């Protein structure tokens, strides 16, 4: 198992340039003048209220407990965040989380698991985003800043998990939730229910999974050695998807 704390003192990679931030906030930041109106600014990470020094949110998914005929985590996510999968636009509709049925070719073992944004420690989507709209918070949650996303879709090309969706048409009022703004022309993905987590809550998929009694999804703080998720990770074998890429995701799979 990878050590989650190993790289965590790495400098916060929120590097954005915005003239407004520079002019208005003057935060403890490194600023470089590039040209008139263009400034490079890096947030100093010790400004963060949710500083990565204290937490990194993650999910542990026990594949053995996940039932192939259960879709409750997907439904819960859809309800919480507003996205809807329709029959006729199944290729263009957003899907923040999906159930995947797997059959191991060598052994014939059949399993089922939910797949969503893996909230990588070194996210390729953040690396490729030209404007810095795709970013990782210091608590490890990878988000799209829809205020500055220009809809180029390069992050979708870069994501190894196909976790992101582009919004292909106008979002009806019924599909916008107060905790989860959604709109045409930008990219979106699982936010680990950041609006709930910031208020001390748990992501909707994890709650739903507990309610089914399957208890396959466990949410917790990977940096807190006493959290249930850390204890289980330290006790049992678990794995990350596409481990060959060394992205060190916050989502881990047990018995896979």
């Amino acid at each position, binding site marked *: 198992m990878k050590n989650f704390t190993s790289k965590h003192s790495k400098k916060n990679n929120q590097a954005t340039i915005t003239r407004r931030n520079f002019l208005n906030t003057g935060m403890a930041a490194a600023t470089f003048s590039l040209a008139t109106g263009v400034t490079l600014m890096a947030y100093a990470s010790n*400004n963060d*209220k*949710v500083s990565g020094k204290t937490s990194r949110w993650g999910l542990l998914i026990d594949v053995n407990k996940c039932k192939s005929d259960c879709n409750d985590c997907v439904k819960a996510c859809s309800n919480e965040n507003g996205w809807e999968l329709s029959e006729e636009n199944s290729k263009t509709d957003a899907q923040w989380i999906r159930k995947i049925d797997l059959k191991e070719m060598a052994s014939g073992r059949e399993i089922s698991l939910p797949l969503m944004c893996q909230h990588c420690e070194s996210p390729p989507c953040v690396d490729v985003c030209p404007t810095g709209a795709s970013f990782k918070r210091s*608590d490890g949650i990878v988000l799209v800043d829809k205020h500055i996303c220009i809809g180029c879709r390069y992050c979708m090309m870069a994501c190894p998990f196909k976790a992101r969706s582009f919004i292909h048409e106008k979002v009806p009022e019924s599909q916008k939730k107060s905790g989860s703004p959604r709109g045409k022309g930008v990219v979106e993905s699982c936010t680990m229910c950041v609006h709930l987590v910031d208020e001390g809550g748990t992501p909707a998929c994890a709650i739903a999974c507990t309610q089914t009694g399957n208890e396959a999804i466990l949410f917790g703080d990977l940096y807190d050695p006493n959290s249930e998720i850390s204890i289980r990770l330290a006790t049992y074998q678990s794995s990350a998807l596409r481990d060959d890429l060394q992205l060190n995701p916050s989502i881990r799979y047990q018995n896979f």
Partner: protein
Amino acid sequence: MKSLTAILVILLSLFSFSALSQEESKISFSPKVPKAVGAPHPEGNEFMRINHPKLLLHDRDKALRLGDREIGNSLKECVACHAVEGEDKQPVTYEDPQYFCRVCHDFVAVEIDCFTCHQAKPDDSILQRLLLERPAPLKQSQAELDNYLQANEQ
């Protein structure tokens, strides 16, 4: 000279005519801002009229990038308190010209992009909370505001 007088007369008559017709439909030369539900801004309306864009932009980045949601200027709260009821007694959406933001923004022809993504209708739970208590941070003076916008979030 004659033609100038003629133009002047025409303009004046047009002006008085429009003034008259506006008197009739009770439209003044400034937009009629709908009343909000909760307690008034302690900073005063004039302060908010001038500074709401700065506060919204500043606090949106705080909430999204730093995860600090203990902010006084959340769009959700604006929307809840400033909801306008339509004829069906339901809060109107941004599509409706009566929508709170649109009343002034249409008047000055400044388009806002918030509601292409954000929910325009109020969240009941937020409204209930706002009716009980006003959100805390008060920045009564411009100096206080500038200080807030520039302060390090230590």
